[in-house]
């Protein structure tokens, strides 16, 4: 089996601490996405699993085997690199078969696997071409081909789509997902694009500054963000994180909160798609910007010092300079601790008024 487990993994370069106590498990056949802003340690995590970097402390297990001190070859993995790592002087076939030849897999077996992968990826007509003669998407497929012919059950991908244009990116991510499911691969997929992560993942690990912010299904991350950072990272446009000042508290009808009576500083999280424009009651907002996106429209309002973004379906009659009243239902409110950004559970009980 090919379950991947990281135990207390730390990695630092001299004084630079890239990863701090990373623990997670990736189940057999699961597609796990490592998501996070640039520099948060996604690639480092992946490279530690691949064995391209050495651990500072902790262990990595793949398929019930401690591989912490094994070289990449012995870890039974395949990897797709950001720039594809294709050998420019070798043709498509030789690029795909590079690893099999290195491992001296019999010739007829090589041929069989190459044909298989080439048809699967629609590369059959390009076997004799050099990478430079192919488009970005086709090059990406060569890199995938390499991972497929290796016939190992663990595949690691580091921002595999970041060099493609938007449309191709969407196609390729569906392709990668269906390949992963068909071949029952255990896949760890690194990206900084939350849309990519949400659409492709079984589970997402959101990282920030070398630590795990949240590990869960895409629905978990969207519905119950564990921190204000998760809330503002997942979703497009991002969640509004508001400091509850008088303007906001006065505008809202009272809502149940576990904070009643306590003096904790807290933050209010509300998703743009959950905000409604209401008639009389609600928070007062001055429209400062409007972005028409086709299916919906994005409206940015100012309330006191704070900006609130909301989306409405289709086109609106609202224009910049209008005064709106904004409202949302209590069940859509997320509460976060103002000190550490952690989610405050249990929107029930007392009331804030």
């Amino acid at each position: 089996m090919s379950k991947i487990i990281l135990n207390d993994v730390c990695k630092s370069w001299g004084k630079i601490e890239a990863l701090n106590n990373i623990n997670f498990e990736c189940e057999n056949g699961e597609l796990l996405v490592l998501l996070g802003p640039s520099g948060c340690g996604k690639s480092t995590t992946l490279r530690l699993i691949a064995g391209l970097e050495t651990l500072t402390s902790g262990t990595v297990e793949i398929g019930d085997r401690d591989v912490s001190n094994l070289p990449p070859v012995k870890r039974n993995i395949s990897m797709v690199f950001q720039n594809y790592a294709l050998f420019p002087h070798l043709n498509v076939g030789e690029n795909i078969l590079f690893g099999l030849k290195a491992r001296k897999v019999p010739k007829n077996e090589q041929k069989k696997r190459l044909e298989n992968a080439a048809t699967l990826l629609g590369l059959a007509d390009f076997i004799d071409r050099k990478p430079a003669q192919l488009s970005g998407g086709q090059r990406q497929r060569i890199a995938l081909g390499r991972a497929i012919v290796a016939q190992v059950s663990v595949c690691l991908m580091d921002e595999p789509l970041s060099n493609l244009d938007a449309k191709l990116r969407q196609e390729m991510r569906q392709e990668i997902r269906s390949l992963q499911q068909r071949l029952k691969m255990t896949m760890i997929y690194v990206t900084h694009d939350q849309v990519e992560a949400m659409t492709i993942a079984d589970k997402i690990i959101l990282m920030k500054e070398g630590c795990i912010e949240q590990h869960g299904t895409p629905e978990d991350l969207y519905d119950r963000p564990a921190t204000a950072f998760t809330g503002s990272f997942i979703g497009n446009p991002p969640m509004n994180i508001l400091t509850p000042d008088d303007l906001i508290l006065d505008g809202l009808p009272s809502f149940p909160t576990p904070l009643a009576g306590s003096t904790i500083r807290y933050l209010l999280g509300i998703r743009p798609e959950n905000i409604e424009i209401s008639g009389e009651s609600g928070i007062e907002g001055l429209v400062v910007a409007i972005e028409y996106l086709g299916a919906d429209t994005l409206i940015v309002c100012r309330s006191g010092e704070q900006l609130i973004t909301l989306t409405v379906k289709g086109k609106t009659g609202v224009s910049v300079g209008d005064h709106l009243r904004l409202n949302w239902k209590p069940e859509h409110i997320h509460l976060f601790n103002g000190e550490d950004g952690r989610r405050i559970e249990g929107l029930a009980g007392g009331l804030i008024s």
Partner: protein
Amino acid sequence: MKLIFQPRYWNHINGWLLVLPAVFMISLFTHFPIGSNVFHSLFSMGTATRPEAFIGLENYKYLMDDDIFWKVLSNNLVYSLCTVPISIAIALCMALLINRNIRGRSLVRMAFFTPTVLPMIAVANIWLFFYTPEYGLFDQIFTVFGGDSHNWLGNPDSALYCLIVMVIWKESGFFMVFYLAALQQLSPELKEAGLVEGSGSWYYFRRVTFPLLMPTTLFVMVNAVVNSFKLVDHLVIMTKGGPDNASSLLLYYIYENAFSFWDTSYAATLTVILVLILAIITVIQFVVVEKRIHYQ
């Protein structure tokens, strides 16, 4: 009728004007001397009593029968065939060695490169000392291990090889720099892909590094071959081509003819042969190797 220049003509004229200075300089210092050299090789040497006269291919006929010419030519072939591949191989090995993250890398790199920055005259003098019978470095080492003293440079059997060793020592560091630059251009991602795919270092070198270094190898090879014909400074210091022309090279023989024997027309004849040899070798290298090179 008025001449109307269309833009495309202007383009051509512009282009020619731009390259004109370069064309002029190259013609003046390269093409014209070659032509004049060929021209001179067809004349006899003028002396005080006899003016120079057109003698056609007489000089070339003499050259065919000149034993020393054949001797220096074969010397030069041995010299090239030894120095070129060996110095390239050593350069590549050194470059691979210091392209890794090892401690004291810059020190090693400097050590490898030092022979290159020394002038040939200085190098020749240093090695002259190394080869000195009895007192020289090599003899001292040999006698410690109970060997006999050798007259390295005085022996016709060893003189040429002594020069070859020295030149390899001098040239390798220079070629290493080119290989090092090329190696640093290779993406580390390729190496990592190789590691994940399970290629050992030899397999990776054979299938990836070496082929991707081919453009550099061609460049270095052309330079090495040309150098092996045109660098003869050390002969002046170390052996003067001796003993009995055992270590003489083509260009040194030309130099002797022109400036020791003052037979400039025979020197011109030899020069024509040298230029021909170099041209042929260069063309062959480009045509043969070019086909097997992948340029990024």
